[in-house]
């Protein structure tokens, strides 16, 4: 049996690995549809045939549950996003990212669109916590997704940017600062079983697998945190 899972774009790479491991276990296959959380939600609300939804935030799975689009009680946090400050320049960021942020030559700073992307909102919280909001507001460049934000930085168009740790975890180039978790609200990413998947054995099996140890290794391997007090 086949499970059709809608996955927030930032989780693309991890989801592929998890899917491969899940299928290797035998029994079921899984197909992913990647997109931004907002787009996926709009589709789910209008009859998309997805069995489960791996969002990039808590709000939309919650809303799906509340509106009867999802099987109530199936929601859980599958990953915690980790924010990182990144520069392709190996020397730009030292041990304290705040110093790099306060430097005079930061003519631009890339963040994700705080309205649509949770990572963007988190980045703003960090700036506020470091008291750099006023200094940097005029220099912010917004990527629509956290992926675009990353591209702004790696293509050299922007010297510094707040990206997801998942995006740079495998790379050793440039310099980075893992933003302390106390500077922003945790980036909970919730998954939920959708109404269309209520009777899908494969979808339930995949969600179970997602909570299992193999998947958790993969998730942490991509730099995500785990919700230790989660219901998983």
């Amino acid at each position: 049996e086949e499970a059709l899972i809608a996955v927030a774009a930032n989780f693309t790479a991890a989801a592929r690995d998890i899917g491969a491991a899940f299928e290797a276990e035998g029994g079921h296959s899984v197909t992913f549809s990647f997109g931004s959380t907002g787009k996926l939600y709009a589709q789910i609300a209008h009859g998309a045939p997805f069995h489960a939804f791996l969002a990039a935030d808590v709000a939309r799975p919650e809303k799906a549950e509340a509106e009867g689009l999802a099987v109530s009680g199936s929601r859980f946090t599958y990953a915690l996003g980790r924010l990182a400050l990144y520069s392709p320049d190996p020397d730009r960021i030292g041990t304290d990212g705040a110093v790099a942020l306060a430097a005079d030559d930061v003519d631009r700073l890339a963040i994700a669109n705080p309205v649509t992307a949770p990572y963007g909102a988190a980045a703003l919280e960090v700036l506020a916590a470091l008291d750099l909001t006023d200094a940097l507001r005029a220099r912010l460049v917004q990527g629509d997704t956290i992926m675009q934000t990353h591209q702004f930085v790696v293509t050299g168009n922007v010297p510094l940017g707040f990206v997801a740790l998942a995006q740079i975890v495998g790379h050793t180039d440039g310099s980075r600062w893992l933003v302390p978790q106390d500077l922003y609200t945790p980036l909970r990413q919730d998954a939920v079983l959708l109404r269309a998947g209520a009777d899908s054995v494969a979808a339930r099996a995949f969600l179970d697998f997602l909570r299992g140890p193999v998947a958790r290794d993969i998730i942490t391997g991509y730099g995500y945190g785990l919700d230790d007090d989660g219901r998983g």
Partner: protein
Amino acid sequence: MATVVWLTLQLAAVVTVVLLVVSTPIAWWLARSKAPWKEVVGALVTLPLVLPPTVLGFYLLVAFSPSSPLGQAIEGVFGQGLPFTFEGLVVASVLHSLPFAVQPIRNAFEAIGDRPLEVAATLRASPWAAFWTVAVPLARPGFLAGAILGFAHTMGEFGVVLMIGGNIPGETKVLSIAIYDYVETLEWDKAHVLAAGMLGFSFTVLLAMRLVERRLGWGGQTR
């Protein structure tokens, strides 16, 4: 990946054909009608282009969703809804690319003028026959331009497709989305390869369209 490529080709081909079929009567009416409000229709036909593709896709999604009257009607007639199906992609892409085909075809019809159709009428061709034997052949450059723009736009645009199609591999995941995914997941090498392949292929198709048209063409202008 093979299915993605195949799906993309199917989509581009089907959309281009449907686009020409749908645009032709609209363009003809816009070119020939004397109705004072025809420009209103002309502007309306262009509007799908004004909305951001994702937004257009969103509204199509709303319109076609099983809970909407239109969606229910479609499901009643065809036994399945449009969203998240290949047919849905075709409908949405056609709608979105409509102005690209209607404009050049309309212009081509207008450029013909009245005379060839008058001649056809005096030679006993019904309006229907004159349309097929005179207007359409003479408007060929317009059809070509419409086909070129429609094809290229369908290859590349994925906002609408992503929204209405749901990016489901083997069913609605097309090449443009695949490249996009690779770019987004930093697999740039793969993105480059795919993009180059897509450009190369499209280039070949576009060039072939032109050259075939030239071959068929009636060789140049009046002296």
